[in-house]
């Protein structure tokens, strides 16, 4: 009697499947809208990035990094990006960037408003906080499941999974930042007869901006971390090369793609972090 009795078998999976099927059919309009929205945005980002000549992108990176950091970093990052091109991975890099960028933009569009309402309502905070905690402890693979359940395979579920995985930091930090606006500052805004919207836009959000920027940096890095995993369900880009290299045990290919991802991650991190620092108001 060491084995679990075969007679006990709860077929939960099938019910979930039926439920999801029902959702997808009855709300097919809703899912289609999301799907085409994501796709439309992604394709535009991708087309624009692919349209810009490669050297202009390098110049752009150099200038941006010079502005937020210094010339030395600018030139160095430019060289690193050039290296990715030299590995023959330019287009792959652009495809990866498009997925990351799309996911980050959606994360911000969804995350900042959630963070705001969460900051306004203690009750909502109590509900959402444990959810965010759970999301961050879950292995990133888990996010692939709902993504394919709702959107099958392809770039859309890849963006969907990446977005869900990377949204918690921006929600968390927006909430925190708005709650931390000094009481007197808020009272001052109200005492001049500001409407709730004016208070939010003219005082709370600008005050919260440095912290929200830190959240954007973290969210972007989380999205980068999903690059390889999301390739498993259809994201195009550098992740595919890594997966293929693993399958074929192709060290050369794996190395070049891996290094390219690391380069991209470092540059995005440094640039967004430095940009966030610029937002800090000196005491």
């Amino acid at each position, binding site marked *: 009697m060491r084995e679990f009795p075969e007679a006990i078998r709860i077929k939960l999976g099938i019910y979930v499947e039926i439920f999801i099927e029902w959702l997808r059919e009855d709300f097919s309009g809703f899912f289609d809208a999301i799907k085409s929205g994501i796709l439309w945005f992604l394709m535009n980002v991708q087309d624009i990035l692919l349209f810009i000549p490669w050297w202009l992108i390098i110049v752009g990176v150099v200038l941006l990094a010079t502005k937020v950091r210094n010339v030395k970093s600018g030139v160095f990052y430019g060289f690193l990006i050039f290296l990715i091109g030299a590995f023959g991975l330019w287009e792959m890099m652009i495809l990866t960037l498009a997925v990351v960028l799309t996911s980050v933009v959606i994360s911000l569009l969804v995350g900042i408003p959630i963070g705001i309402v969460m900051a306004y309502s203690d009750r909502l905070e109590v509900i959402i906080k444990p959810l965010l905690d759970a999301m961050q402890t879950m292995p990133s693979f888990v996010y692939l499941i709902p993504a394919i359940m709702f959107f099958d395979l392809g770039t859309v579920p890849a963006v969907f999974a990446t977005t869900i995985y990377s949204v918690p930091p921006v929600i968390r930090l927006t909430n925190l930042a708005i709650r931390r606006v*000094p009481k*007197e*500052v808020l*009272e*001052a*805004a*109200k*005492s*001049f*007869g*500001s*409407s709730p919207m*004016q208070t939010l836009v*003219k*005082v709370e959000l*600008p*005050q919260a*901006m440095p912290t929200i920027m830190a959240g954007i940096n973290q969210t972007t890095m989380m999205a980068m971390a999903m690059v390889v995993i999301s390739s498993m369900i259809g994201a195009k880009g550098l992740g595919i090369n890594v997966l293929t290299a693993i399958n074929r045990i192709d060290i050369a290919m794996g190395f070049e793609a891996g290094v390219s991802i690391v380069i991209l991650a470092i540059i995005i991190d440094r640039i967004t972090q430095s940009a966030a620092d610029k937002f800090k*108001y*000196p*005491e």
Partner: protein
Amino acid sequence: MSIKLKAKNITKIFGKKPKKIIKKLDEGLSKDEILKETNHTVGVNNVSLEVKEGETFVIMGLSGSGKSTLIRCFNLLHEPTKGELYVDGENIVKYDKKKLREFRQKKMAMVFQHFGLFNHRSVLENVEYGLEIKKIDKNKRQDIAKETIKTVGLKGWENQMLHQLSGGMQQRVGLARALANDPDILLMDEPFSALDPLIRREMQLELIDLQAKLKKTIIFITHDVNEAFKLGDRVAVMKDGEVVQVGTPDDILSKPATKYIEDFVQDIDRSKVFQAKHIMNKPRDVAFIKNGLKVAVKEMKADGRSSIFVVDGNRIVKGIVTIDEAIEGIKENKTIKEVIDNDFNKANPEDYIQDLIYKAVKSKYPIAVTNEEGKLIGTILRSTVLSALA
């Protein structure tokens, strides 16, 4: 003077179900008992008071006595748990959200203890804030803001960020931001408490000057008795959420309503509160030039004094003469003009005693208190100055 703001039975209780606690207060339970029994804090307890148009009304009390809570009831940053609040005769507690916003935009502005400034905005943008909320167009509001910045002495700092300013200057920005809105009522919650003493004194004097020009209704909060008596036309003393006495500084000093207030005003620095007019003697004993030396000597002898101020027909002080020199002068047949001494000290009736100390110590004569036209309206003996300090 008309009543600008009238508070009637204002009570503010903090906690989950404040309305329920009102009953307990009515039953006579104390703030401590209510906190222990129900975990509610009584911030303000049944306060009624009236603030007149154009006066500086000071609310003073120890930390935790409910001053901040009360002043926040006045612009409804705290909604009173009970009570009515009339501004220009209208009960503002009844206002809906829109009316309340309009009210705040037009009638009241507040200055905060820790300044409450927007550090993401420049000095100019901070001062503009209230006007921006009122949707006044950019050019006009910048003009007004610049003018106000000049009034508070910050001209040239318009485009700086706040961290480049000292504490005193930051509070000037706070004051300018409030004044730019041209409110009828200025609420000031311990505006100078976070500043060091020297700057604080300077700001107090400037506020007095400014108020002489602007004639706003000012509600000013402080825990510092000296500040209260220096600035306040009338002062309300708070304890445990209640107002225990309202009156002029003179009233409160001379007739403290309770032992608590007596103790409170004890550590007051009289030299900063009392002015020349409070301690001067009415000049019964003056010598008129036309009456000559003999009359002067007689006056001095009658009063047992060693010197006397000499005035002309308009009571303008011309000098002082001592009894010795007067007698000497009579012997030598001199006129009064030949023996009077001009080396005496004058003071304005509004001078604080602390500014008279030096004069009292330096001169051998009493101090002449004169009005703007130079008329003698009082004299202060040197010993009076020094004994007033005790």
